[in-house]
């Protein structure tokens, strides 16, 4: 047995759900730990500081995962440091790979976001209009600093070279196991690939009309999940719920469809797609059966980008000008 794989894990602008998915591997993870030595896992698990990572030699980590997107100057700095220290860097989960749920903020100007977060939320009391400042001089002598809030949410790839991508919010544990196995066996696909099956959610979805030799029919009415309970049987897209299964990586085993929710695209684009939201528009636009259905869609989803780029807005070809 060769030396253990030196492993690092950094949480940037994420919720730690991706790290939980890793921990969810339980026995599998214990098995993997025989081959892996954790040299950095911050800020969540190991008692290491950023300066410890900064002090490491370049390329001394064999494999590093990042979960979360980039929004703060701190994220940017640490992602760049981690890249320099690592031989292989994996953007792990929807936030790291595509910008994720926090990426939807990109259609709002910073002022509006601050106003909402620090002023308008009903649980906030802020009569003096205090907003976070990157620097503050306390009592005229203590210079306090905070990481600076950047203009837009960015993906890891926007900043540094990424070797592999893993989708999911969070990544499904079976699929994480597969990725870890691939890494340990050294059987990796070409750089830049997603560590996925390449199959769409529809492919593994029990509701797929093709299973019953049925053809897809145009959709006349668009529904939202708040409009009622989606049907337990049949393709949700055909029932008018805008399921993004046709264009999304299905390594989750169609989890959402198994509990009657349409796919919202957390698995990331299937191979060959250059822009997830544009492809979503293509898929949805071609199944709508009438102008009335288009109007209904526009009315029910007033911010279209938050439907078609729910997990991938910062990865869009168009960079938002908000």
């Amino acid at each position, binding site marked *: 047995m060769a030396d253990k794989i030196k492993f690092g894990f950094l949480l940037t602008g994420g919720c730690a759900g991706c790290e939980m998915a890793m921990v969810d591997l339980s026995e599998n993870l214990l098995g993997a730990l025989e081959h892996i030595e954790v040299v950095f896992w911050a800020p969540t698990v190991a008692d290491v500081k950023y300066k410890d990572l900064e002090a490491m030699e370049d390329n001394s980590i064999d494999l590093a995962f990042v979960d979360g997107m980039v929004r703060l100057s701190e994220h940017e700095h640490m992602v760049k440091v981690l890249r320099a220290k690592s031989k292989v860097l994996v953007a792990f989960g929807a936030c790291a790979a595509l910008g994720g749920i926090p990426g939807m903020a990109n*259609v709002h100007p910073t002022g509006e976001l601050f106003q909402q977060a620090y002023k308008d939320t009903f649980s906030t009391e802020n009569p003096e209009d205090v907003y976070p400042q990157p620097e503050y001089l306390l009592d005229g002598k203590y210079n306090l600093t905070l990481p600076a809030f950047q203009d837009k949410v960015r993906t890891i790839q926007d900043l540094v070279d990424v070797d592999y991508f893993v989708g999911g919010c969070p990544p499904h544990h079976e699929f994480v196991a597969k990725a870890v196995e691939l890494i340990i066996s050294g059987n990796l696909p070409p750089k830049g690939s997603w560590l996925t099956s390449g199959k769409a959610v529809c492919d593994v979805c029990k509701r797929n009309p093709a299973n019953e030799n049925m053809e897809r029919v145009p959709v006349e009415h668009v529904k939202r999940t708040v409009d009622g309970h989606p049907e337990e049987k049949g393709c949700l897209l055909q029932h008018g719920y805008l399921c993004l299964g046709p264009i999304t990586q299905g390594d989750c085993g169609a989890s959402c469809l198994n509990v009657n929710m349409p796919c919202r695209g957390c698995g990331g684009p299937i191979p060959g797609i250059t822009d997830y939201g544009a492809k979503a528009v293509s898929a949805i636009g071609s199944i709508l059966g009438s102008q009335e259905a*288009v109007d209904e869609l526009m009315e029910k989803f007033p911010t279209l*980008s938050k439907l078609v780029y729910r997990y991938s807005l910062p990865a*869009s070809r*168009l960079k938002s000008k908000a």
Partner: protein
Amino acid sequence: MEFSPNIVGFACQWCTYAGADLAGNLRCKYPPTVKLIKVPCSGRVEPEYVLDALSKGADGVFIGGCHFGDCHYKEGNYKTDRRMQLISKLIQEFGFEKERFRWEWISGAEGKKFAEVMTEYTEQLKKLGPNPVKEGK
């Protein structure tokens, strides 16, 4: 120097591209702002192409197809129309002006209309100025 917009155009081979050809044969005048790409059907134009063109700095993107009922593939242009309404909404949410993306139905007999639309679209984009992604470049 006066700003001359750069328009990326997609035209279906059965109608709008034939219309552009006819405009040439009739010696209709229109500005040399459009770079026309022939496609089998306007329904073949992926929304990805529109975003790609805009993200690379095209000042305007144009799609031309057959009139409703005249599509060579029966309903390709209905699909185009539905998709393009969604794309138009999307680019506006990203902060791009509505006018940066336009689609029209122009038949093979409407050479004059093709020239008129290109002239008018060019004027419109001139007023609007360059694509904001080019700023600072």
